[in-house]
């Protein structure tokens, strides 16, 4: 559901059409592959089917017809619960973690609280893996566990850097407000 939730996050700022959504997605995730139009529209269809978004307008200004989508109340609730829930600290959590954190930061959600809770989840998983590592005597198995532990460590460092950047950005904003 990751990409769909990012679209919900963009729509939380106000109604938009497919092209706006694609552009907003690509701006927010410059390090990932640009989102194909086909994926935007199939995601929107699914979201509409699930009553998370609705069509509010169909405009035609000379060019092709453009459909404007808006978030429904159910969509707003879904977005909020996605942002609220921590991600499993599994090997494939990283992408969803990045999507969620970036979306939360754009929404101005209390990211510090989320980051702290996610840290607890990751650290808990790391604790389990360290116990597992201590219980095996086979060196190759230990090395394999190391790989996952180091990835969790990288996630944790990234979460920490994200929290520090959020704090820094707040300070800059407040300094700016104080000057103005």
């Amino acid at each position, binding site marked *: 559901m990751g990409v769909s939730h990012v679209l919900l996050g963009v729509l939380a700022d106000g109604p938009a059409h497919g092209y706006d959504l694609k552009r907003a997605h690509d701006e927010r995730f410059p390090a990932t592959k640009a989102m194909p139009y086909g994926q935007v529209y199939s995601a929107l269809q699914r979201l509409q089917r699930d009553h998370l978004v609705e069509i509010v307008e169909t405009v035609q200004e000379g060019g092709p017809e453009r459909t404007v989508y808006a978030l429904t109340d159910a969509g707003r609730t879904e977005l909020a619960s996605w942002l609220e829930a921590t991600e499993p600290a599994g090997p494939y959590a990283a992408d969803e973690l990045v999507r969620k954190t970036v979306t939360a930061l754009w929404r101005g959600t209390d990211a*510090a609280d989320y980051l*702290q809770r996610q*840290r*607890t989840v*990751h*650290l808990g998983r*790391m*604790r389990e893996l*360290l116990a597992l590592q201590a219980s095996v005597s086979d060196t190759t198995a230990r090395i394999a566990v*190391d790989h996952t*532990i180091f990835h*969790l*460590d990288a996630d*944790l*460092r990234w979460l*920490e850097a994200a*929290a*520090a950047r959020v*704090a820094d950005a707040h300070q800059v904003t407040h300094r700016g407000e104080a000057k103005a």
Partner: protein
Amino acid sequence: MSEIQFEARGVRKAYGRTEALRGVSLTIGAGEVVAISGPSGSGKSTLLLALAGLIRPEAGEIAYDGARLDDLGEAHRTRLRRRQFGVVLQFGQLVPELTAAQNVALPLLLERHDRAAARRLALGQLERFGALDLADALPGELSGGEAQRVAAARALVTGPRVIFADEPTGALDTVGGEHLLKTLLGAARDNDATVVMVTHDNRVAARADREIFLRDGVIA
């Protein structure tokens, strides 16, 4: 949680205009292994030093076994630290004029132990940390990681009830750090000792029963 050993309430400490701790309250149970983590400058080391009675907070209170640390006289606090606390600071902090074995024996000699018995206990601790071959080396001859192992041996030689460690594996690589931590935590468990360690290494924090995460001088 087990019986409460440390209780801090509203602890504040500033260095000049920089507030290192801005109202920290916590409890630590006897025998617990606690990691204090957080970004640089978040107040981790200051909190550790305050709990160990090495610095006095400007406001708030810290109780150890129900008695307020700041109410105790300097002599009483020193005695408490020598007998019940073992401290491993960053970079080892060994006395440069003494050999590794003399450094480890020092806390025992300060408590008027017999010199030969102190040396025997010191060598036992060095062996535990795989540092017996370093016994006669001077701190200047040790690598950072070796100095940390000697400092850990010194912290444990009196069989303390509480072990305070500031970045105990900071100068060691992954495997070396793992060995030191395993020995340190194993020794603590054998003595039912409490461990309070400052770390910015997530893998060290994950070894603790509980993490206290500081941000800007408060618990996040």
